[in-house]
């Protein structure tokens, strides 16, 4: 079942002199199996938006439908929050700072236990989730989360959400603060989680070049509204408007645009590095230059994940 958001508006400190509008009549539909990238500068409303999808913020006006769970401003009927939170998994920024239990396995089992599973079941799920994020539960399960390295901690935190088996996984800047190698690993991990457990993935990102490599749709927020929600090929024709709200075009798109100005047409459907590389190979062959194929542009090769 998809996510349907209709006319969602929200203001912080509503009814006080400090009232601040965060969302203004947002309409969004997300179908199953999509990889959504959400962009927008700080204060554009994107965080407020995703917190609504998890029921962390009460709807003030408008309505939300997530996998059949209906959220409105009405007090009754009370939505089934337990079900909602096991449907929508939410990984916050710097999630490693939210680890708290004495051992890794207990921490990861926290979510499943809250869902009402027995201790055995919860631990089994935790072990499974740890394996999914590429950690060996037998090796680190009994260790204290605080002794792990930064990258491991972040994986444990993600496992804590995965253990609830969400159909929709939302991550708020999952690569923030990591080095490029760590970023690459976390992004490949997210792709694998999408394949293996959570078919719908929503990622907030600030890095155009990074997100376009993975997402199949971008939603751009600005001033509490959805500024852009269209296929990426269309979106990147609005370079100036994007710049006006503080977003740059991906470097591959601006390279293709600049080449077009110099009379070299690589096609107007380039949205990421892979697309650009393939277009260059195609153009070279058209000009009689021999070259091999490029499957995807990667730096670390396959050992990244």
């Amino acid at each position, binding site marked *: 079942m998809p996510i349907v958001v209709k006319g969602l508006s929200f203001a912080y400190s509503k009814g006080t002199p400090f009232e601040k509008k965060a969302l203004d009549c947002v309409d969004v539909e997300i179908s199953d199996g999509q990889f959504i990238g959400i962009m927008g500068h700080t204060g554009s409303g994107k965080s407020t938006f995703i917190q609504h999808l998890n029921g962390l913020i009460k709807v003030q006006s408008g309505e939300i439908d997530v996998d059949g769970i209906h959220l409105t401003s009405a007090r009754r009927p009370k939505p089934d929050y*337990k079900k909602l*939170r096991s449907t929508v998994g939410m990984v916050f920024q710097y999630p490693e700072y939210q680890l*708290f239990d004495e051992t890794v396995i207990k921490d990861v089992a926290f979510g499943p236990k809250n869902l009402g599973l027995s201790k055995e079941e919860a631990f089994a799920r935790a072990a499974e989730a740890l394996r999914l994020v590429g950690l060996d539960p037998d090796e680190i399960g009994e260790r204290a989360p605080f002794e792990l390295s930064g990258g491991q901690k972040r994986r444990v935190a993600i496992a804590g959400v995965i253990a609830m088996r969400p159909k929709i996984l939302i991550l708020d800047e999952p690569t923030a603060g990591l080095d490029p190698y760590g970023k690459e690993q976390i992004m490949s991990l997210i792709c694998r989680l999408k394949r293996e457990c959570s078919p719908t993935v929503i990622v907030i990102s600030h890095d155009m070049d990074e997100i376009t490599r993975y997402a199949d749709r971008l939603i751009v927020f600005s001033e509490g509204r959805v500024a852009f929600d269209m296929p990426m090929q269309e979106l990147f024709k609005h370079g100036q408007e994007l710049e006006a709200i503080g977003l740059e075009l991906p470097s591959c798109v601006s390279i293709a645009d600049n080449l077009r100005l110099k009379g070299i047409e690589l096609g107007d459907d380039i949205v990421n590095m892979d697309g650009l590389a393939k277009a260059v190979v195609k153009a070279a062959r058209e000009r009689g230059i021999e070259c091999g194929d490029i499957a995807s542009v990667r730096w670390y090769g396959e050992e990244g994940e």
Partner: protein
Amino acid sequence: MRDVAFGQYYPVSSPIHRLDPRLKIVFTLLYVVTMFFVSSYTAYAVILIFLLALCGFSHIPPSAMFKSIKGIIILLILTSVLNLFFYGGETSVVWQWWIFKISPEAIDSALKLMLRLILLIMGTTMLTFTTGATELTDGIESLLKPLNLIKIPVRDLAIIMSIALRFIPILIDETDKITMAQKSRGADFDSGNIFKRAKALLPVLIPLFVGAFRKADELADALDARCYNASPKRTRMKKITFAVRDLIALIVFAALVAFVFLDKYLIGGADTYIVKLFNIIVEFFKGL
């Protein structure tokens, strides 16, 4: 509104906001003491008028000042009722039932106690309404300066206060974030008995404390990098200056305090005179 730690600051510009914070702190302390010497309804009325005038000069709606009582309303009712029924002094009882009795003296005492508490809260609130957290710490630091002589590190205390003020909103924000994160993992903070609820808070408190220690660690490096403790004679950029408006404020406040004490010890309560005056006027009109 978390930009101000005490959540009370009323961010407008006014002559009262610009008053020397030291003066405002001293005034507030004196005000609290003075309140215990107020003996007549006239004096209470004068103080109320003073507070309303203060609201006017500081561009704060009087309703905001009255709202400050909301927090103590239960205490207020409780103490007044107790005072009303269990007044200990000599009484001319007018109503009695079991151990409860009411007398004019009890009514008078309860009423005055209530007025005293209300005015006390409203008056002290005006300090936090008109003085920012930083100004308050600056003022306190400046007032405590003499303690340097007996080797109390006033400047260090001031920096600790300043850092605490700076980190309160950050930690509140952090608490919000962690609470949300744990809620999204199905944590339930709202049900169960008190022990269950306390236990439910651990997933929030532990990361919060770990985070606070990490912050403290990094902050220590930042302080060192900026030469904390480099020189025994530290200087201050901010100099609190005493302006003409401070002098005027001083005179007005002194007059108020003087009135309260004169009223109590010389006049012996202006109420009787006012009642007499009232009677004379009534007689005068009757005579017509």
